[in-house]
């Protein structure tokens, strides 16, 4: 069995307003997928993230800790959430990723976890 990070990406312009029909729909779709993952045994963990503007970058250089406001990657595209799944192989991971992309209505990235 191997573990994969399946991350969800979007423009960081988005503000989650859970009252919109779109957010309700996505939330229902993701909820259903989570149930399916749990039932199949592929579920390890999943989380949605607050917008990247809420992030803090922390550095430690020779004991000096510094912090900067905002996300590390200075790109428009930011990670909005992720799953950790455990499956027998790559193709199975890609099948789940396809379902995740459909549930989130956006692209997802699949990346193998070391070990």
């Amino acid at each position: 069995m191997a573990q994969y990070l399946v991350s969800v990406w979007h423009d960081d312009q988005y503000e989650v307003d859970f009252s919109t029909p779109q957010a309700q729909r996505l939330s229902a779709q993701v909820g259903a997928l989570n149930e399916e993952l749990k039932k199949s045994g592929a579920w390890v963990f999943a989380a949605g993230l607050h917008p990247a503007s809420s992030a803090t970058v922390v550095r430690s250089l020779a004991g000096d800790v510094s912090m900067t406001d905002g996300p590390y990657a200075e790109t428009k595209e930011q990670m909005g959430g992720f799953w950790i799944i455990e499956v027998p192989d790559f193709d199975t991971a890609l099948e789940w990723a396809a379902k995740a992309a459909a549930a989130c209505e956006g692209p997802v990235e699949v990346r193998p976890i070391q070990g």
Partner: protein
Amino acid sequence: MNDLLAEVFRREAGPCTATLVRVLGDIDLAEDAVAEAFAIAAARWPQTGVPPNPGGWITTTARNRAVDRLRRESTRDERHLAAHRLNTEDMEPDHNPELDRLDGLVDVVTDDQLRLMFLCAHPALGADAQVALILRLLAGLSTDRIAKAFVLPEATLAQRVVRAKRKLHDNHASYRIPRAGELPDRLQSVLTAIYLIYTEGHRNGTDLAARTAFLSAEAIRLGRTLVELMPDEPEAVGLLALMLLTEARQPSRIGADGKLVRLADQDRTLWDAALIKEGHALVRSCLRRNQPGPFQIQAAIAAVHADAPSPGATDWSQITALYDHLYALRPNAVVALNRAVAIAELRGPAAGLTALADIPEGALKEYQPYHATRADLLARSGHREEAITAYDRTIELTTTPPELDFLTRQRNALFSAD
């Protein structure tokens, strides 16, 4: 002996590597082991003669060398495990009579090759990487040779292969034949990669032709192997038919003066009758299954062209109908362009131009064949000024010398045609 060894290598490197990948569970180990086995063969066969089943000999030798190496180097747990797995594999122990064992090996080899094809053409890899991996692992070509054919620095090509292998390894890509549900998509990826290798072989101008023609030969060989492995897949048969029928016309594609010859101007007596006959038989056999797909339809189109003893005898209504069918399956601008060419032949250049005008603006803006077609149709329908502008645009987008030469001649002819 050297020729014989080269021939064995050409034929067996792919199948042997494929089996070793299964047995060793690692592409790099498999490649090294097969290379080592061929080195041993090169040293030994001149004295002992070639064994009756050279492929089996190479596979067994490579496997044994890999076991030795793993034992020697088994400092890491992973390698311990691999060596352990080998010792419990079905290929060992050796108490079966040698021949039975080799027969058994040959049986699994076919599936191994298919697995390796699906692994190399994994859709998570880019097309470039798929092609490089297939040529390296299945065709047994050196990175140096592949790099030369693609006019790339060897280091770039080698890096591409390493990266692709690493991605498959890190992602725990399985060495298996896709399940029925995923087969159509995965097979499409294999077929497209092989066809890309084929077209790459004939894409370049004459100065590169000698350097790249072997790619087309390799693609045909891979296509034949695929049909042997999946005789019930009509698209695999369609791909092979398409390559054979295209290949049959190659001798007439470049004239004695090194210039590109249009289909209509080609000397059809140079076409390879045997290839055409084989291609025709394949087209018939796959279409009979009544599961038409893009490669089968393209092969059928090539078959109609090959059928015509002269350009005037071409059955353009059938070709137009086939393009309609292809467009229904693959509604893209390139298919629409080819359809417009067929319509122009069937109903005249004006009808062709009308069909061209239906293609969404911008879809083919940078596509040289679109501008070449448009220039030709404009010239043929008497729009001289517009034709000259279209030829200028075409020439801007043309990179191969024979084609450049041909287009310049076409363009200049418009000035003298008063």
